């Protein structure tokens, strides 16, 4: 594949729910291969709605979504869902099989992988999130942080072009938060991280987008956006008490 093709290209995306509620009003964004980008926005901004368009769960009213050059359309749905790995907010929704191994195997098996190749894929994905020894456990016997990591593995097993995480840091204690950050940083994959955890966005993603009321209102280096108090206030994005984005060194 041509190296300059963007991992994700969304243009003019608009969507109204069947009940008439318009959630997206023309979203434009481009994410290059290997970038880690945060998608920030207050509750109800349309973040989850946007995410559900990226793998064709919802179909755009107008506009288009392209993943590594392939348009999201009914005839490519299987390939699109292999390329876009979505990690949902609640790992109990994501982990629906009786054991960790079967859960991680689900995606690759659905795309036709079998036998030793499938086993190797499962082993590799669990290794990437440091959960290899839990392969035979039922998901509900794991801690919340471990379940989140397995949820990431279920998606990594599909070897996606882009990893999309919806609120990955919610409900995590500080240690699990840090472990997840280390895992995500170690991966060689494009990441779109939906969050309103601003310090986490700053730590993880050099670039950020702000989605508010169904449109992208800002796009730039995360540190710059967080320092723009007017922008933050206008879109109900508040930094935690005592947190100063200027004091954080993100060049590591």
């Amino acid at each position: 594949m041509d190296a300059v093709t963007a991992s994700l290209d969304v243009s003019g995306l608009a969507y109204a729910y069947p009940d008439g509620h318009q959630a997206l009003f023309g979203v434009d964004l481009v994410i290059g291969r290997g970038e880690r980008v945060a998608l920030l926005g207050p509750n109800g901004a349309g973040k989850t709605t946007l995410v559900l368009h990226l793998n064709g769960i919802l179909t755009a009213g107008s506009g288009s979504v392209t993943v590594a050059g392939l348009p999201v359309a009914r005839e490519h749905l299987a390939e699109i869902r292999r390329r876009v790995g979505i990690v949902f907010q609640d790992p109990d929704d994501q982990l629906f099989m009786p054991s960790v191994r079967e859960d991680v195997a689900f995606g690759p098996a659905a795309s036709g992988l079998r036998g030793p190749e499938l086993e190797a894929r499962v082993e590799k994905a669990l290794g990437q999130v440091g959960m290899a020894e839990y392969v035979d456990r039922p998901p509900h016997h794991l801690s919340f942080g471990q379940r989140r990591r397995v949820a990431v593995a279920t998606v990594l097993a599909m070897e996606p072009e882009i990893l999309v995480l919806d609120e990955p840091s919610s409900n995590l204690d500080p240690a699990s938060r840090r472990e997840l950050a280390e895992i995500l940083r170690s991966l060689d994959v494009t990441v779109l991280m939906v969050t309103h955890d601003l310090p986490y966005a700053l730590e993880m993603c050099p670039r950020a987008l702000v989605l508010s009321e169904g449109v992208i209102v800002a796009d730039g280096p995360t540190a710059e956006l967080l320092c723009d108090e007017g922008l933050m206030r206008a879109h109900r994005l508040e930094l935690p008490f005592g947190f100063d984005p200027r004091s954080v060194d993100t060049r590591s």
Partner: protein
Amino acid sequence: MGAGHAHRLYRHGHSPVHRLPPHCKLAAVLCFVVVVVSTPREAMWAFALYAVLLGAVAGVARIPAGFLLKRMLIEVPFVAFAVLMPFVAQGERVEVMGVSLSVSGLWGAWNVLAKGTLGVAASVILASTTELRELLLGLQRLKLPPLLVQIASFMIRYGDVITDEMRRMRIARESRGFDSRGIRQWGVLGKSAGALFIRSYERGERVHLAMMSRGYAGSMPVIDEVTASRAQWARALALPLSALAVCLLGWTL
């Protein structure tokens, strides 16, 4: 399959019976039960031989007799039913220690007791050597409708999640001073049940989204192919085949 969903009947082990593929074991137990049920009740020695056969299987599976007997207690209600039969059945009667009993009732009781006990014992041996997950794979392999198997798998996965949700709702009710005794509180319990239903329904929708996102298109992908060699089938079917020989003898003698 590790420490997975060990149910209460399961006994962890590595015996030859544990290692047999689940669908062979299921088929063997099913055939064994059919053979036992079709044995004439008058051939009492045949039932003794069946018991010996099961004892041999339990021995190979290294299940202690005490474990097996304790788990066979689920049979007790049927025993009570069988004990009543000689008293209530009609027809020719005999005197046993001064009590008048019906002959056909005695035979009927014996029939239920002997066949029931053997069936329960065979099922308990199957359950103590096969994990729930494996049983499901076995059923799938034996061509049970896939939808049924999927529903059963989801019940295993989400049973604990839903019980946990129920527990949290109860704690929330009780911390607000709710006392669930008394008929007047049933309305509140009904509303909780409704809320639980809606939560479970919404979870179902979210799980479905997650499944579609990973390529689900209506049927579960094959992850574990349970296969059995000829030798494994032969070993599993040794039990019902020996039973069949006994049964045929029972009919001819």
